[in-house]
């Protein structure tokens, strides 16, 4: 009877295994933001002068097209400083022309811990599709062998649906800039601010680990005569009002200290920039296409200014 039982279980799970195999094949063969960015940066190693790192604020907010230097946006949605450092260390020795590194600093960037809920599936994609050695993935973590196991089934189905509909699941252009936050009129910013602020509130004030990550990047950049720009991107004031002002102050102070103590670092604080209009925003803390163009040009003006060099 046990043989019958085992045989029936195997027969029962065959359709499930087929679905798993199809999903695995999809993730292994269809290019995503991760694999696309990895391929393009590798192809453009010899030309890149400016490297952009950071989370969605950089991904959607800094369009390399509007920078004077040849730039590549290696940021990604929810990319923490932990992965910024890993990516920087992986590629830095292959970028002979690199002069600038831009890193966006948001409300939670400095307090974010590695391996949080945001990284729960992303870390496997960094490992598998960006060829990073990710220490937070344990040696016996079976998910590193199967990308389809890392994502929820409904997300995978939704990605396949997007692929069938649009022919791609890549959400950025050839310079790495995120393209799907199109222009909006900013009508629901007040409503969204509350939920966004609540989502971003982590009640963490320990910046030590992330500051040391930044220091490590800064020290290496100094060695290769490269400037580091820490950019606090503009956000909606209604959202800003709901954030912890003590933490915001601490972020400003920490970044300013890095700039004061390192000659190759500049802190560009655009958080409360008066030039920001509602129509520049996609949501309370992300720029849309129009805002990305406007603020990339502003950042470009600042980093191109010879007074700011050394």
């Amino acid at each position: 009877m046990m043989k019958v039982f085992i045989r029936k279980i195997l027969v029962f799970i065959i359709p499930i295994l087929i679905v798993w195999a199809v999903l695995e094949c999809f993730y292994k063969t269809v290019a995503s933001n991760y694999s696309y960015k990895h391929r393009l940066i590798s192809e453009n190693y010899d030309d890149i002068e400016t490297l952009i790192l950071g989370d969605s604020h950089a991904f959607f907010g800094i369009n390399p097209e509007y920078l004077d230097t040849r730039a590549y946006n290696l940021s990604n949605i929810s990319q923490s400083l932990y992965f910024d450092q890993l990516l920087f260390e992986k590629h830095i020795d292959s970028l002979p022309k690199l002069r600038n590194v831009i890193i966006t600093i948001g409300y939670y960037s400095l307090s974010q811990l590695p391996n949080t809920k945001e990284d729960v599936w992303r870390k496997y994609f960094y490992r598998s599709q960006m060829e990073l050695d990710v220490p937070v993935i344990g040696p016996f973590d079976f998910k590193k062998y199967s990308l389809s196991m890392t994502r929820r089934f409904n997300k995978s189905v939704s990605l396949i649906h997007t692929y069938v509909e649009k022919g791609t699941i890549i959400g950025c252009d050839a310079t790495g800039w995120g393209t799907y936050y199109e222009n909006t009129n900013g009508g629901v910013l007040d409503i969204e601010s509350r939920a966004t602020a609540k989502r971003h509130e982590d009640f963490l004030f320990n910046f030590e680990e992330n500051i040391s990550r930044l220091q490590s990047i800064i020290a290496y950049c100094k060695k290769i005569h490269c400037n580091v720009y820490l950019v606090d991107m503009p956000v909606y004031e209604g959202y800003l009002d709901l954030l912890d002002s003590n933490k915001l102050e601490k972020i400003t102070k920490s970044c300013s200290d890095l700039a004061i103590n390192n000659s190759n670092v500049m802190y560009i604080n655009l958080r409360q920039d008066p030039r920001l209009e509602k129509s520049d925003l996609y949501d309370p803390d992300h720029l849309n296409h129009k805002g990305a163009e406007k603020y990339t040009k502003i950042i470009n003006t600042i980093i191109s200014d010879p007074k700011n060099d050394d």
Partner: protein
Amino acid sequence: MIDFLVGRQLKSALGNPRKVLFGISLFFNIGILFVFKYFNFFIETFTEAFLLFGKPISYNSLEFILPVGISFYTFQTLSYTIDVYRRRIDPTADVVSFFAFVSFFPQLVAGPIERASNLLPQFQKTRIFDYHKSVDGLRLILGGLFKKMVIADNCALIVNNLFENYTDYSGSTLFCGAIFFGFQIYGDFSGYSDIAIGSARLLGFDLMKNFNFPYLSKNLIEFWRRWHISLSTWFRDYIYIPLGGNRVSNSRLIFNILIVFLLSGLWHGANLTFLFWGLIHGAILICTVFISKYKRLNVFMDNQKSIAIDFIRIGITFFIVTIAWVFFRAENITEAFGYINRIFSTSFFSIPQGNKLFLILLMGYFLIEWFQKKREHLLDICHISLKPIRYLIYYATAFLVFYYGGDLQTFIYFQF
């Protein structure tokens, strides 16, 4: 180890030494539970009481990490000692079986709280593979995953938001929130129990049933026969009956019921919210018992044949249980009363905010339970003779688990 050794000695001990041995076992079991779970609660309550009388006292609270499932396995070993003391079972001489009984992995952290008379002998006999039992075990696991991942985890997202921001919502929305919590805790706990019972069944062990479609109960007495059965029967056998049960005077009966429900509340956690939850259940259960005693008031207690009256009775019981859940879920007693106050405001009659479709789907799930009420469990569908239909139901359930499984949430009862 103490319970094992005490059990061995109790076999031959007589008179006072027997009582001393029994006392030692009770002291260690309840003592450990008290230190880990209740010490801080009592010391803080005493301090506040002294403060009320203008006599501030200083104290040091203990900073322990609560061992997972301590309430479950403490009660399990207590039942062993009590049964041996009462000579209802023979103490085991097999230490491995005893340890396996206490730490049997499927039910270690959240029950069902097994009795030694049921589980212990199963470790000692040879187990033979039983095809039908194993298949039923898999059905239980699948049904349990559905309850946990689809129902409980999705409800949790709504419930967490509503309880955290209850001042922002209308009474009707908060009442829906309480209903969602009712489904969350049911899906979470009965889902875990089904998975535990199913896993044990695959290994050839029969664990006791812990839930029997409790939300279909027509009164609170029935509810407690169907909800967390292993705990309610534990309290019945080791607290309620030794206190005299229901063969006592009315005042003593009220006392017995209240004691059992207050202890049941306290078992869940050292917090006034759990005590209140127990008190509400106890008070309404006392009313139910007295209504059933007097024939004139007995209209709602009789076995009616009308489905409409059945539904009304189920609805009333569900309403009471739902309101009581607010105390169980709230972080503190102030929050619980604040939440209840807002429910019973004029906004109770407004249209609830948020996702009403999910509420309708939950009511649909209610109906499925209604059709399955005479079966062993949710996926007990062996009476369906057409194999393709059975397989379709299994695959549909598996699909729902994979596709609609909510964000991972810790099992609620792991904290107890």
